[in-house]
């Protein structure tokens, strides 16, 4: 029987991310600290004003689902990667876990991830459920 091992939900304000989108003129050290190179390229190509916020919200939701934070575990922001398939529908995406997030996923004996996202003109929401 499948069991819920963890659940995380996060909400972010879009306007807090507007200044954090890297431009061609200047690299954003925030983006370099938090997102993988693949994510930065992907988010820049797909509705950047929404995708960077969703990427961050996804990472926060995973931290909560795992019951850890980046300051009390070995998990890193870049261990959780959100990549969108196309800009026509942000609900088409994939999540990759690496590093300590992957180790934790295996340690908890997770076998599946259910996730969903929502956004409007002001907020983004990301929800993660870890299943055994």
């Amino acid at each position, binding site marked *: 029987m499948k069991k819920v091992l963890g659940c995380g939900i996060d909400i972010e304000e879009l306007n807090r991310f507007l200044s954090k989108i890297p431009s061609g003129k200047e690299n954003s050290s925030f983006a370099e600290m938090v997102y993988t190179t693949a994510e930065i390229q992907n988010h820049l190509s797909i509705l950047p004003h929404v995708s960077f916020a969703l990427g961050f919200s996804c990472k926060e939701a995973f931290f909560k689902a795992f019951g850890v934070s980046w*300051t009390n575990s070995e998990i890193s922001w870049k261990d959780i990667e959100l990549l969108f398939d196309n800009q026509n529908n942000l609900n088409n995406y994939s999540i990759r876990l690496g590093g300590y997030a992957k180790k934790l996923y295996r340690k908890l004996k997770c076998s599946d991830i259910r996730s969903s996202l929502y956004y409007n003109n002001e907020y983004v929401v990301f929800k993660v459920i870890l299943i055994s």
Partner: protein
Amino acid sequence: MSKITANIKEEVRNIVYQFFAEECDADISEIKDSTNIISDLEGDSLMFLELIEIFKKKYNLNIELKTIAKYIVKHPVETIGQLIDTQILMIEHENNIVNL
């Protein structure tokens, strides 16, 4: 790595106080070193990352988030005063902060 002077300490303190006053819409006179960042100011991880970005840029710091996280696991940051002390150590030791 920088030698920490009284001026740098004062500058860090002013930046941190000003940052939280603006971000949390708080009166700067009500923020103290003992103010709890989460329960008193409703601060969040995004604010903490923003502050790290500010100091990385201002002092051209070579420090990784993972290093900061490892330090904070051993030395939790809950108050404004603890955050100021951590930022000063980041400026002073950069990636070597993990060895403290």
